[in-house]
C-alpha cells in the first residue's frame, strides 16, 4: 500500500512537470513565461524532494533546495528585471504558431513515452516512467528553444530542458554526482543569465544593437 502511494506521488509530480512544460509553450508574454518557469522549478523541487524521501537519499534534498532557491526564486527574479529594463515584457515572438507547437509537443511526448517504455523494459517501473517523463520535458525544452526567437525565452527553454535532466538524474536510483551536476548546471545558467544581462542581447543575435539599447535606456530613466 505504502509502496503504491510512493509510486503514485512520484508519478503525479513528474507528470506535473510535463504539464507545466506544455503551459510554457503557449505563454506569449515574457513576464508570464517567467512565472510559469518559476512554477516549473517548484514542481521539480517537490519531485526531487519526494525522490529523496522514497529513495532515502538525503543528498537529493540539497538538489531540491538548489532548484527551489536558485531556479524558482533568484533566476526568474533576475530575468524579470532584465526583461523589464529592456522593455521587452510584452510579447514573445514565435516562429511557428502556438497550435502547431502544441501538436508537435504532444507528438514528442508520445514519442518519448513509446520509446522509453519499449527500450527500458528491464528496468524498474518507477525509474522507467520517471525517465519517460524526463525525456518529454527535455524534448519540450528543446522545442521551445527552436520555436522562440527571443534570447530570454531561449534561456527559459534551456532551463526547462535542464530541469528534465535533473528529474532524470534524481530518478536514477543511487546515481552519484547528482548534486555536483545540479551545481554545475546552476553555474552554467548563472553564466548565461549574466551573459544576457551584461551583453544586453535583446533579440536573437542578428538584431543586437548596442547603441540603440543605450539610447532606449536613457529615455526610460
Amino acid at each position, binding site marked *: 500500500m505504502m509502496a503504491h502511494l510512493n509510486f503514485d506521488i512520484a508519478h503525479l509530480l513528474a507528470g506535473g512537470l510535463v504539464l507545466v512544460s506544455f503551459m510554457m509553450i503557449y505563454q506569449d508574454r515574457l513576464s508570464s513565461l517567467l512565472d510559469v518557469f518559476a512554477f516549473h522549478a517548484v514542481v521539480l523541487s517537490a519531485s526531487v524532494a519526494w525522490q529523496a524521501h522514497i529513495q532515502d537519499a538525503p543528498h537529493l534534498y540539497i538538489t531540491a533546495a538548489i532548484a527551489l532557491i536558485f531556479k524558482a526564486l533568484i533566476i526568474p527574479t533576475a530575468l524579470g528585471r532584465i526583461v523589464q529594463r529592456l522593455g521587452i515584457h510584452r510579447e514573445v515572438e514565435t516562429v511557428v504558431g502556438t497550435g502547431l507547437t502544441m501538436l508537435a509537443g504532444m507528438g514528442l511526448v508520445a514519442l518519448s513515452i513509446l520509446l522509453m517504455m519499449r527500450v527500458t523494459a528491464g528496468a524498474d517501473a518507477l525509474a522507467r516512467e520517471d525517465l519517460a517523463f524526463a525525456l518529454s520535458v527535455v524534448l519540450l525544452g528543446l522545442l521551445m528553444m527552436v520555436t522562440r526567437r527571443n534570447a530570454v525565452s531561449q534561456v527559459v527553454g534551456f532551463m526547462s530542458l535542464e530541469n528534465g535532466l535533473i528529474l532524470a538524474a534524481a530518478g536514477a536510483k543511487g546515481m552519484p554526482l547528482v548534486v555536483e*551536476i545540479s551545481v554545475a548546471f546552476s553555474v552554467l545558467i548563472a553564466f548565461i543569465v549574466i*551573459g544576457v544581462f551584461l551583453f544586453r542581447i535583446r533579440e536573437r543575435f542578428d538584431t543586437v544593437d548596442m547603441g540603440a539599447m543605450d539610447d532606449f535606456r536613457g529615455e526610460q530613466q
Partner: protein
Amino acid sequence: MSAVDAILLIPAIAAAILALLPGYRLSARLNMGASGLTFLAAVALLLLPRPGPSDYFLVDDLNIVFIVLNTFVGFTAATFSASYIGHEIETGRLTPVTLRFYHAMYQVMMFGMNMALLSNNIGLMWVSVELATLSTVLMVGLYRTHEALEAAWKYFILGSVGIALALFGTILVYMAAQPVLGEGTPSMVWTNLLAKAAQIDPGILNLAFVFLMLGYGTKVGLAPLHAWLPDAHAEGPTPISAVLSGLLLNVALYAVLRFKMLMTANPATLSPGPLMVAMGLASLLFAGLMLYRRRDIKRLFAYSSIEHMGIIVFAFGMGGPLANFAGLLHMVMHSLTKSSIFFSVGHIAQIKGSQRIAAIRGLTQSHPKLGWSLALGVLAIAGLPPFGVFLSEFLVVTSTFARAPGLALLLVLGLLLAFGALILRLTGFLFGEPEGSLAPAKASFVPIWAHMGLVLLAGIHLPGAMVAWFEAAAKLLG
C-alpha cells in the same frame, strides 16, 4: 605527487595565480611556463610506469596519446599567445584587465580538458567537458564586439544543448549499468562498465549512445550540429582558435570514442559504426563545399577543421586496427597542422589588420617567412605529400577501399573538394600585388616550425616506437 596529479594540479594552481596577478607580460610568461610544465608531466606519464585505474582516473594506451598531444599544443599555443597578445595590447583591442582574465581562463580550459581526458568516471568526464566549454565560451567573447558576442552566444546555446543531451546519455548509461554493477559510483566507472558491458541492457545502451553521439558530436563540430564552430573560431582571439581546433574538438571526440568502445564490447547492441560513418562523411562533404564560399580566413580554416573531424570520425566509425590507426594518426596530424596554420594566420591578420581573404595577397613579397609558413601549413592540411596528413589520409582511403569501395569514392570526392578550395585560396594569399600594411612581422616562428617539423617528420618516416604506441591504442579501440 604522481604525474596524473601534476597534470591536473599545475593548470589549477596556475589559473588561481594568474587570476590574481596583474601585469600581462609576467602572466604570459607564467602561462607559458605552466603549460610547459604540464607538458613535461605528460611526457613523464608516458615514460614512467602507469598507475592503475582508480574510481576517477585512468591512464591507458588510448588517452595517453590525447594527453601528450593536448599538453604539447597547449604549450606551443601559449608560446604563440605570448607574442600575439603584445600586438593586441598595442592596438588596444585588449586591455591588461581582460588579459588577466584571458590567462586565467586559458589554464582553466587546460585543466578541464586534461581532466576530461584522464577521467575514468563518465560523470566526471561530463563535468570536465562542461568546464572546458564554459571557459572557451568566455574567451570567444573576449573582444566584446558585436560579432564576438554573437559568436559566443551561439556557441554557448548550442554547446549547452549538446552538453545537456550528453548528460541525458550519461544518465541512461548509469541506469543501464546499475542493475549489473550496483548502485553508486561503481556504475559510473568506465573500466567497470567495459568489463561488464556484455551484461548491460543493450536497448538502453543504444538509446544512450544516440544521445551521447549527438551531445558530444555537437562539440566535435559534426554536421549538422556544427553551426557554432566557424563563428567561434573566427571571432575569438587566434590562440583560442588554434586551441579549439587543435584540442577541444579532440576532447569531445575522445568522449565519443570511450562510449563507442562500450558499445562494441556488447555484441547485442546496434553497431555504432554506421552512425559515425554517416556523420563523418556528411561533415566532410558539407565542409568541402562550404570551403569555396568563405570570405574570412579564420572561417575558411574553421570549415577545414569540420572537414578533418569528419574524416577522423569516419575512420573511427569504420573501425578495425588499420582504420583506427589511421584515424588516430590523422587526429594528431590535423591538430599539429591546424594549430600551426592558425599561428601563422594570427600574425598575418594582425599585420593586415583584417581577416578578410580579399585583403590578404602577395605574402611571398611582403612577408616571405610568414607567407611560406602558411603555405607549408596549407599544403600539408590539403593532404599533399610528404606531410603526415597525406600519410594518414592515404591510410584512411586505402583501408576503406578494401572494405567499402562506394564509401571510399565519397571520401575521395570530399578530399578532392577540400583540396581544390584550399589550393585555390592559397595562390591568392601567396602571390599577386601585396595589399595592406607592409610592416615587418614580429612573429614567433618557433611554435609554427616545431609543429610543421613534426608533421613533416611523421610524413617521411614514422618512428617504430610511435607506430607501436599507436597500434596499441588502435587495438584498444577495437
